[in-house]
């Protein structure tokens, strides 16, 4: 069994070496694919905070992905058309500046996470799965009929938003941004797992009654995890929208929620790099299997089934065995 630490290093290595190779060989599309993988990974790392640490099976994380996407879409749309976003009570104009868009995405996702979390955490088990799904569907149908921002057609942003000092339209530049954010979030996540909050949350997932008898509120811990989880997935949504220069209600669909969950499961629930492996494998399969067969979803389905039935702990679990204690 390989130490998880070494495997994580190898995975990070893949995320560094392949793009550099692609840059040298002038294969910009490979960089675009890696960017896609990095962004999916970020979205799934977000879900993993709720799912892996908090035990919250959210089938509605597309809500945050979409909110992030629309944060980008709406701000950039107003900047692109030179129309104010809001005139009253204060004049707010759009923006094409990525850091601003990201902050907006994070704040909006946090607000949504707070509201959805407060209501959803009244339930548990299957009911929690279903109420998060219901919130996702609400946002999905709302975005379809919100004609001011394109409705079903979505919003197209003609030129990728800007980041000071970089030309974001160059694939390697944008990739650098995305991978930096992914690494930053992974670092925060690795600290979070070992922090007092992480330990309390971990216990709240396993034995909420115990957490309560030491005087802590397990629901509040889970709510905090749900909000954090949402903000990270929201940030990923903003990046994804900028990768495509386009947002549409698809980002809100329940299939998107399912796919984000699939990334986490393929890699390994609760493992720091699980979502990263999952996203990488998914994008690779999509590219290679998709090239081989029209019906590649069948193979994806079989792989998933195999992992659920026979592979405890996803791919990382298969390679490294049971998770080690955080010492």
């Amino acid at each position: 069994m390989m130490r998880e630490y070494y495997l994580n290093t190898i995975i990070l290595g893949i995320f560094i070496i392949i793009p550099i190779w692609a840059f040298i060989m002038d294969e910009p599309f490979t960089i675009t694919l890696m960017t896609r993988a990095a962004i999916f990974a970020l979205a799934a790392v977000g879900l993993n905070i709720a799912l892996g640490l908090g035990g919250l099976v959210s089938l509605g994380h597309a809500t945050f992905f979409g909110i992030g996407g629309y944060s980008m879409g709406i701000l950039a749309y107003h900047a692109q058309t030179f129309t104010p976003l809001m005139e009253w009570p204060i004049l707010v104009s759009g923006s094409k500046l990525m850091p601003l868009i990201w902050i907006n995405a994070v704040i909006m996702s946090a607000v949504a996470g707070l509201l959805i979390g407060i209501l959803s955490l009244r339930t548990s088990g299957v009911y929690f799965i279903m109420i998060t799904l219901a919130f996702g569907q609400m946002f999905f149908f709302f975005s379809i009929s919100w004609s001011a921002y394109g409705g079903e057609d979505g919003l197209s942003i003609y030129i990728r938003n800007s980041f000071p000092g970089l030309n974001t339209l160059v694939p390697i530049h944008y990739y650098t941004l995305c991978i930096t954010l992914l690494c930053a979030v992974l670092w925060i996540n690795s600290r979070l797992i070992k922090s007092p909050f992480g330990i309390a949350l971990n216990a709240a997932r396993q034995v909420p009654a115990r957490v309560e008898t030491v005087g802590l509120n397990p629901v509040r811990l889970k709510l905090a995890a749900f909000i954090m989880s949402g903000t990270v997935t929201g940030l990923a949504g903003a990046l994804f929208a900028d990768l495509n220069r386009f947002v549409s209600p698809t980002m809100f669909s329940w299939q998107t929620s399912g796919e984000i969950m699939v990334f986490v499961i393929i890699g390994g629930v609760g493992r720091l790099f699980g979502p990263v492996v999952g996203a990488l494998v998914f994008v690779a399969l999509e590219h290679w299997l998709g090239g081989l067969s029209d019906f590649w979803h069948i193979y994806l389905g079989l792989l998933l089934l195999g992992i659920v039935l026979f592979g405890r702990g996803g791919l990382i679990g298969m390679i490294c065995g049971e998770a080690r204690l955080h010492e």
Partner: protein
Amino acid sequence: MTFVLLAEQILNGIQFGIMLFLMAAGLTLIFGVMGLINLAHGSLYMIGAFSAAAVAGMTGSFILALLAALTASAAAGALVELLVIRRLYNKDHLDQVLATFALILIFSEGTRWIFGSFPLFLDIPDPLSGPVTIPGGIQYPLYRLVLIGAGLFISIGLGFMITKTRIGIQIRAGENDREMIAALGINISGLYTLIFSLGAALAGLAGALVGAIQSVQVGMGEPVLILAFVVIVIGGIGSIKGALIGALLVGLTDTLGSIFLPELLKLVTDPSTATSIGSSLSSMAIYILMGAILIWRPTGLFGIKP
């Protein structure tokens, strides 16, 4: 808004609700007895519709088509239960969601592989096509009346089966206490397979019945699946009575919402905006209903309190 229109819309809502019930009944039984979330239930609905369309295309007989739908979906259900599902009973909900999500991918792409991407068609049999006039001067499609009748008949049959028969007693025992049925010496794995394929057959039947008034295509099961989940969550998971009431509630909310919401909004804003906002709201209406009910009663209307 005339009485005739209102009555017709209520009938539509009931018909929609009854069809949802056929889906939801299987889902809720499977969850109640085996504790399994089955996302692939929509695929069984699709299998029913496709088998019916294929057999109707070959033989031209609607009865044979329905029989084919029942057999094919029950068989598919039993097969899936034996190969995959029974390995999931002891896993957590997350694994169940994922494994059955995987089954959706396999079933959908498999169906597309066999039948292609174009929608199939299944026609209403001639004796049932066209409208009839029912008391009150309402003209209503005969086939939809037959759907309501068939659905009610099945609901009653299901109710009878659960309350009066041996199988029903075993099912209720299983819902209350899984160890008890083992203690009673009942063959659990046989019972589970039976329940699963019963649920599958109901879903397949719904698919075939509805397929005749809609188009039969890959992916037709998922929208219905989500609605069926909404239904059982509203009703309380595991409760057949809850599923029936939830189904009618969802059917009526959806149908009446899409008519009344725009009308209501027309009182406060101009017609065009009213129609647009009204229809957005009505497409969200059942999810808002579900959210509200869960916030009020976190385990649904007839769910068992934790």
